[in-house]
């Protein structure tokens, strides 16, 4: 079997979640690669869309930001920021939207922090802020989150709740008035986590080949159910080929 990096595994794990009817809202970096890989492999009819307003982007060259002019190349249509988010908030189009996000911290209910570490009014580290993150998390029918698998990132309590996941669990999200279906997968450099349908608590869905279950659990700052975990199929030769040769031949992200 071919060797591959954890980044490659992550991109492929996310790509596999995307289907033909999906409209994929992606951010910068590995999430863009996941969307591109899906479009080349398992979801050729999916649509790639950016908050900046580019819809149906061809992505012949890898953009390094969602504002990169490369998102404009051979797009189906140029919208505005207002248009993009309206497509998410609108329940007819929003139901087909899959969002892909990253964050600095995540809690057991998939809520995300991309704003500050420490007190909001006296931070020890400041990040870029919500961007479209809170919007995607509020509206998109399904949200995939990329995380570095570190204990300080999987926390009991977020320093700031930027992007709503399942909030306090159970029906909290729905009762709050959020429309979208919420976070449904967290993809890390060790494995994939999902959420219990009832309690909305995070559980370990699977681990990558060569990763020990214990290492995964030890690197999460809250209790996690690993009883259902299974090994995740490594990237196939075809998946790796497409990712490397078609999505990021210059190795800008990989």
């Amino acid at each position, binding site marked *: 079997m071919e060797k591959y990096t954890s980044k490659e595994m992550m991109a492929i794990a996310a790509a596999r979640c995307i289907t033909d009817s999906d409209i994929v809202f992606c951010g910068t970096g590995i999430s863009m690669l996941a969307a591109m890989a899906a479009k080349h492999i398992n979801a050729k009819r999916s649509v790639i869309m950016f908050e900046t307003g580019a819809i149906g982007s061809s992505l012949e060259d890898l953009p390094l930001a969602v504002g990169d002019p490369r998102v404009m190349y051979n797009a189906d249509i140029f919208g505005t920021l207002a248009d993009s988010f309206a497509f998410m908030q609108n329940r007819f189009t929003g139901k087909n939207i899959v969002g892909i996000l990253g964050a600095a911290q995540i809690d057991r209910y998939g809520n995300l922090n991309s704003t500050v570490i420490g007190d909001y009014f006296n931070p020890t580290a400041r990040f870029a802020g919500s961007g479209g993150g809170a919007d995607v998390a509020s509206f998109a029918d399904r949200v995939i989150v990329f995380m570095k698998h570190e204990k300080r990132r999987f926390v009991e309590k977020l320093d700031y709740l930027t992007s*709503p996941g399942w909030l306090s669990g159970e029906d909290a999200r729905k009762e*709050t008035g*959020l429309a979208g279906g919420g976070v449904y997968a967290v993809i890390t450099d060790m494995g994939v986590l999902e959420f219990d349908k009832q309690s909305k608590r995070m559980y370990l869905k699977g681990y990558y080949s060569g990763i020990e279950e214990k290492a995964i659990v030890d690197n999460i700052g809250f209790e996690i159910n690993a009883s259902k975990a299974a090994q995740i199929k490594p990237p196939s030769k075809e998946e790796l080929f497409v990712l490397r040769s078609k999505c990021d031949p210059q190795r800008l992200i990989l």
Partner: protein
Amino acid sequence: MGLSEAISKFVLQNAHICIGGFTLNRNPMAAVYEIIRQNIGGLHLYVHSNGQGADELIGAGAVSKIELAYAGTGRFAPTCIRFAKAACLKSILIEDYSNYQMTLRFMAGAMGVPFLPTTTSLGSDIIEKWGFSADIRRKDKRLPADKLIVIDNPFEKGEKASKVVLVPAINPDVAIIHAQTADSKGTVRIEGLTFSDIEQAKAAKHLIVTCEKIVEPDELKNNSGLNTLPHFCVDAVVEAPYGAYPTACYKRYDYDPEFLQTYEKYAKDDSLYSKYLDNYIYKTKDHADMLEKNIGAKRLQVLKADSDKGYSTKIVRKSAV
């Protein structure tokens, strides 16, 4: 009107301003540098995801308060460096919104309504935590009394009513955007994505448009559907070639990875950063002079957009990331 005059006329000390563009695309950088050159301070800055423009204004100490959704330039600076430093040093006051909320706030300003509704961010700290104190809001009449207001949907009766977030309009004193083309009367044509530049332009009391090229009056009438702003919205239109540099201008030139990498190096170190400000901004008399002294025609040639792709096919982006 030249850029220097337009900035000094409309961007007053303590003005509320917004700047167009997104992360590393079509930021009105010539205007940003001119604001820094003129030492205009105390600015209240509104941006959704402006990136480079916001970071340089903050780095130069021009900004006292910022309302934003995002400060980053994609892979080049996932968080804007001078912004992050200022936040931790508390040298600027920050009010956080989401991108859609900031877009709606500009849109409300453009539409002439006091607020627009959305459901985004319900349950988040964007709703709960307010960066500006009630005192600050009371003292500046240009600020709404509330960061945002959550109401029950009045079209649904009783306890089943769903929640709606009302975000207040922004009507900045000045908006500054950069376009590819404008005619001398002020009709503006932006090519490619407009982000929320149009809403920002319409929401502002005054609008400065910098552009790559000014054409004859009515020359843009040949294709009305491509034009983005009517001249009666525009207070000053200024020709500023490479006016978005070091950010990209679709169909004209790309962002400059080398510059962004250099900027990162300077921005991370306070003593170096003052050298950056000196060499790139204070010691250059205008944007053309900055480009000539620090960038050079040869580099600009490399950045030139491929006519099909709309961006450069010659730049090396690997090392920059």
